[in-house]
């Protein structure tokens, strides 16, 4: 295992300490239990927007705490859902009297832990709503599974939901924005290499030098299928087709396109992928009017990428364009 770390068990607390030291102007980091809040919160009368999940997906979620996005994030152990006590403390910390929204990625652990936290917070008199993101088209959505995983859309939903909260909309409205982004969004991911969980000390899976995994999860969970390594053109065609056909996105649609790196993928490849994606969508009459390109929801050092589309309307476009000032996403401020 080759990592820039000290001991496996100290990875998360030490990285959090680094974030705290680096971004004191935007965030405050609490430990025991671990959570990150906006330096200028809680904001009276504003809905608090919270997310959380396992660590190893940086900058998600901690890097998205700040003006116009999240009020708090709860980082768990690497690839492990955080615990209810973290979420409860974060919920209390950001409560400005207008209620708190939990944005939860659809994993059994995350859902159960957030549910327990919401029950505890409600018992303390805080109004809590939750939206579960489940945009991963690689997973069969049926009664016989835990449903689709929450992946790339989560980042985009956090941005737009945060913008809606910043406008002092009600908890119901803010939750509706989040739900809308999720409902209009779809994602598909792939991996060229595995990641290595620090505690495990070895790669989660083996991928031969000439193979790739299509439909990978952000925790190195196996995907749809393993295939011979293909060209960027073929990979985008395959993934974009799965995404486009799922909603489906139609000719004339305007979309936000998100080309995400899994942590070990250089930016030059992401731009090359974006070029392929735009060409593919143009062929389908789908117009990219907004985009995000970079490594924002990662799987440690995994090489690979994911493609996310969100169908935009006027409301969502304005929420996307609204100012944001967080460690990882910043514009207009």
């Amino acid at each position: 295992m080759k990592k820039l770390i000290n001991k496996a068990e100290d990875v998360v607390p030490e990285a959090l300490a680094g974030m705290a030291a680096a971004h004191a102007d935007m965030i405050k980091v609490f430990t025991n239990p671990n959570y990150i809040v906006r330096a200028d919160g809680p904001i009276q009368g504003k809905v608090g927007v919270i997310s959380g999940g396992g660590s190893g997906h940086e900058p998600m979620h901690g890097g998205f705490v700040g003006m116009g996005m999240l009020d708090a994030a709860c980082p768990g152990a690497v690839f492990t859902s955080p615990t209810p006590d973290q979420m409860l403390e974060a919920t209390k910390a950001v409560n400005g009297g207008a209620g708190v929204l939990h944005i939860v990625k659809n994993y059994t652990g995350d859902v159960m832990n957030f549910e327990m936290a919401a029950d505890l917070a409600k018992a303390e008199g805080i109004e809590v709503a939750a939206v579960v993101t489940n945009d991963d088209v690689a997973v069969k959505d049926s009664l016989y599974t835990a449903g689709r995983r929450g992946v790339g859309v989560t980042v985009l939903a956090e941005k737009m939901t945060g913008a809606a909260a910043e406008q002092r909309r009600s908890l119901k409205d803010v939750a509706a924005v989040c739900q809308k982004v999720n409902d209009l969004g779809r994602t598909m991911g792939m991996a060229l290499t595995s990641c290595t969980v620090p505690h495990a000390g070895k790669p989660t899976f083996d991928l031969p030098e000439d193979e790739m995994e299509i439909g990978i999860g952000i925790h190195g969970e196996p995907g749809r299928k393993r295939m011979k390594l293909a060209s960027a053109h073929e990979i985008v065609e395959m993934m974009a087709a799965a995404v486009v056909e799922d909603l489906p996105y139609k000719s004339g649609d305007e979309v936000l396109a998100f080309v995400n790196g899994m942590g070990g993928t250089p930016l030059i490849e992401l731009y090359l992928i974006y070029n392929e994606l735009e060409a593919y969508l143009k062929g389908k009459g789908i117009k990219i009017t907004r985009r995000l390109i970079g490594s924002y929801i990662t799987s440690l050092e995994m090489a690979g990428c994911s493609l996310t589309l969100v169908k935009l309307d006027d409301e969502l476009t304005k929420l996307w364009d609204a100012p944001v000032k967080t460690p990882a996403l910043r514009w207009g401020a």
Partner: protein
Amino acid sequence: MTISRDSIVDWIKAFAVAIEANKDYLTDLDSAIGDADHGANMHRGMQAAVGKLPTVADKDIGTILKTIGMTLVATVGGASGPLYGTLFMQLGTSTAGKMELSLADWTAALEAALGGVVARGKAAVGEKTMVDALTPALDALKSAAGSDIAAALKASAAAAAAGRDSTIPLVARKGRASYVGERSAGHQDPGATSSHLLLQTAADHLK
């Protein structure tokens, strides 16, 4: 014949040791169909639980088990945190105030615990989860009603082992392993494996 409070404490410690000894094994199982953290999760939680023991070891069994449950909820995370947390909290609720347990008490407690796990995780038998180890273990206990405690606990551990093994051919329908669909068949479920350890250490230490 009853189960003493001290043997309950021994059992918790022994379960923590078993988890430590099987940490890499559990993580390997979770690598194949999940996200390679079940061993680390359970280990982190049981270390914290053992750390809490001294503060409650002189209390009643219910308090001890509830404390373990709350500690697991606050330290494990993932799917196993709420599930094992609920399991121990329900064991504790069912044994509140008791300083020793009869076989019937223990059976009732495990029934409550399994009920809590199912209520939280909504898994049925055959969906490739810890429920596949816990359910036959409870059934074996029930069948052994009236018999010797040691023999009953042994039967329940053996049933858990069989239940654990029964997960191998299954296609997962709950939790993270369900994402890989058909490809989950042929792999043993990590949570069922740790649940067997729970009941095996119970058989070895409760008395």
